[in-house]
């Protein structure tokens, strides 16, 4: 955001305390406008070319999304009986959720294992988790036939033996846990210190709840496919290992997504980051890369064990097998090697590149399971263009919400104490 840099150069400072430069107490409105006047704020927003791209996406994609609710799912999808789940779940749920595992990973690292050196990036990890889950639920709401019945599995008609029942409850509970974990950032910004103290007193409980819920629902998303043993290609299906494949891959997915997001923050909103974030980022990136590498090697091993256990070696020679080996080679082994090189040689940049590949690899894996290799004995379904458009729309909404919060709440910077500001 070049405009923000010019404003800073002209003497404006981004809001990071309750008091303005002339020692007046800032209102919530001032904070929402980043300490700028309304006209200044709008001017900088209008001059940002990225916003124009979003405007086009919102105008067109918003229209298509509205038509889904006006004319039904049949208007925006191919209404397939054979492929009941399309991009909304294949991408929106099955890909977004593992990429949002960062919240519980960093929560565990800092709060449970006491690695306070990861603190500068903890809040970004929590926010990445919260927003990923929130928008996964929004994707789900677009996909559900009757979204207004979302609470039925909770209160109206309960089917507790179903895997999706577990997913529904855990995602709902985990969303509230993640909101609570981010309350301190909001409390600092809004000036509610008591709220922050309360959350701090229960943070260990929250974090452990997060681990339990994450283990189970990340695994449960994989277990959902064990309902379709004949439909998912055997190389992407393993009844005993499916849940562990999904859980284990969510570990590196979350860590790699965090590396990618922190890189974007550093490149596009360095004005909002403080030295605590920027100066530590290379070290933290390599730390996250270490964790991701351990998860990658574990994942690779259990993937191979699953093939051996199920006796699927023969499939590797088929066309599907080559596709599988491409996914594993490019999405798992390559980032693993690149991470190792980057850790050994202290190359944060290479680790960032490897993280991006691993994120794309996870997306490919989830789409392979949910769409590409699903019904491998039937025909291939190509999503309707309106379905693609709605996905782009909801994902853009996700990015803009993400940016809105990062600009304001103390995620990438540390909130300055009142005494420092006044004094």
């Amino acid at each position: 955001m070049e405009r923000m840099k010019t404003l800073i150069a002209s003497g404006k400072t981004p809001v990071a305390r309750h008091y303005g430069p002339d020692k007046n107490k800032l209102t919530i409105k001032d904070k929402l406008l980043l300490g700028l006047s309304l006209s200044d704020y709008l001017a900088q927003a209008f001059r940002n070319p990225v916003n124009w791209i979003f405007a086009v996406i919102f105008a067109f994609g918003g229209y298509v999304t509205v038509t889904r609710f006006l004319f039904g799912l049949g208007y925006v999808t191919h209404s397939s009986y054979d492929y009941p789940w399309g991009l909304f779940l294949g991408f929106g749920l099955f890909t977004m959720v593992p990429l949002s595992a960062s919240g519980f990973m960093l929560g565990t690292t800092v709060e449970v294992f006491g690695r306070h050196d990861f603190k500068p990036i903890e809040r970004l990890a929590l926010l990445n988790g919260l927003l990923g889950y929130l928008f996964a639920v929004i994707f789900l709401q677009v996909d559900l036939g009757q979204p207004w019945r979302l609470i039925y599995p909770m209160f109206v008609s309960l089917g507790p033996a179903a895997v999706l029942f577990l997913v529904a409850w855990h995602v709902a509970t985990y969303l509230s846990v993640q909101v609570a974990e981010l309350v301190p950032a909001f409390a600092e910004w809004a000036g509610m210190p008591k709220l922050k103290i309360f959350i701090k007193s229960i943070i260990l409980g929250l974090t452990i709840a997060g681990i339990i819920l994450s283990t189970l629902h990340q695994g449960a998303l994989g277990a959902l496919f064990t309902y379709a043993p004949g439909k998912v290609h055997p190389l992407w299906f393993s009844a005993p290992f499916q849940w562990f494949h999904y859980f284990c891959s969510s570990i590196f997915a979350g860590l790699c997504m965090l590396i990618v997001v922190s890189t974007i923050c550093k490149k596009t909103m360095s004005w909002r980051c403080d030295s605590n974030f920027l100066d530590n980022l290379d070290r933290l990136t390599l730390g996250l890369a270490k964790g991701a590498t351990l998860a990658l090697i574990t994942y690779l091993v259990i993937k191979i064990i699953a093939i051996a256990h199920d006796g699927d070696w023969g499939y590797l020679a088929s066309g599907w097998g080559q596709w599988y080996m491409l996914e594993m080679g490019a999405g798992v082994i390559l980032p693993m090697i690149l991470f190792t090189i980057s850790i050994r040689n202290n190359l944060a940049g290479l680790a960032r590149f490897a993280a991006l590949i691993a994120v794309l690899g996870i997306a490919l894996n989830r789409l392979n399971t949910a769409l590409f290799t699903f019904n491998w004995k039937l025909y291939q379904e190509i999503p309707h263009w309106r379905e693609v458009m709605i996905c782009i729309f909801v994902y853009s909404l996700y990015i803009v919400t993400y940016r809105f919060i990062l600009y304001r709440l103390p995620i990438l910077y540390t909130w300055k104490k009142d005494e420092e500001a006044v004094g």
Partner: protein
Amino acid sequence: MKAMNRRKFLKGSLLGGAAASVIGKSKNADAAATFGGYPEAMGVLVDLTRCVGCRSCEAACNKEQGLPAPAQPFDDLSVLDHKRRTSEGAYTVVNRYEIPGQDHPLFRKIQCNHCNEPACLTSCFVKAYTKTPEGAVIYDPTVCVGCRTCMVACPFYVPAYSYSSVLNPVIKKCIFCYDTRLKFGRPPACVEACPREVLTFGKRQDLIKIGNQRIKNYPDLYEDHIYGENEVGGTSWMYLSSAPFEQVGFDTDLGTQPILSYVKEFLTVVPMVLTIWPALFAGFHLLATRKDVQKKEEKTEKS
């Protein structure tokens, strides 16, 4: 203060553990029940050797269930030129299969097979499905959220969805004419309409005997297998064929385990994680932060 925290924490994890064990138990009970089907369940034996593809069953189903009129009338047999599946407008369809080495084709009627342990039922998180003691798998549209997991789970690709409906899209599938006929002990509309006695309605256990008898009497005519006797835990609708079943469009790789048995591997993990994780990670926390705690204690001693 520290002791207080610890006590609070212990209390919390105990509560969590108790809750988890309750949940764990109910889950296990649901998951571990191996259900062979209701003993009095009814079924239908479909004898493909008798079917001539007249589509009378399709017409009867359409009328009985009040489905919309089809694009092509039921006496138009040209629809048999391509393979069809069940849809929101047709709960049963007949397909034609040319059999290599046979001078006449075989016709296969497709509808819900009404499994003993239905995958749709076990995958449903709002309990919209019920397997009735009469053998029907029925569906309650008033609780359905529209997640369509049942469509993913059904190994026979049977449930369809009324995607075109904006306000009330629901699952559409054969319910064995439960509301209008089966409940009163009467055969479904398609069975009554069949002019060739392709469909035999009766107790599932008797149908297996009848099927085996036919195979025994005409071993040259029939394949030595009743499709549905054991497939995915057994189904109420079963088939006899004169051609290998895979040549008549059947999936012969489904195995004899109910779909739920593939999911159990995960369901057994759930109570373990719920009970072990809290103590395990709390332990990790105490180990990982013991140096910090020691430092703090030393500080307080000094001061």
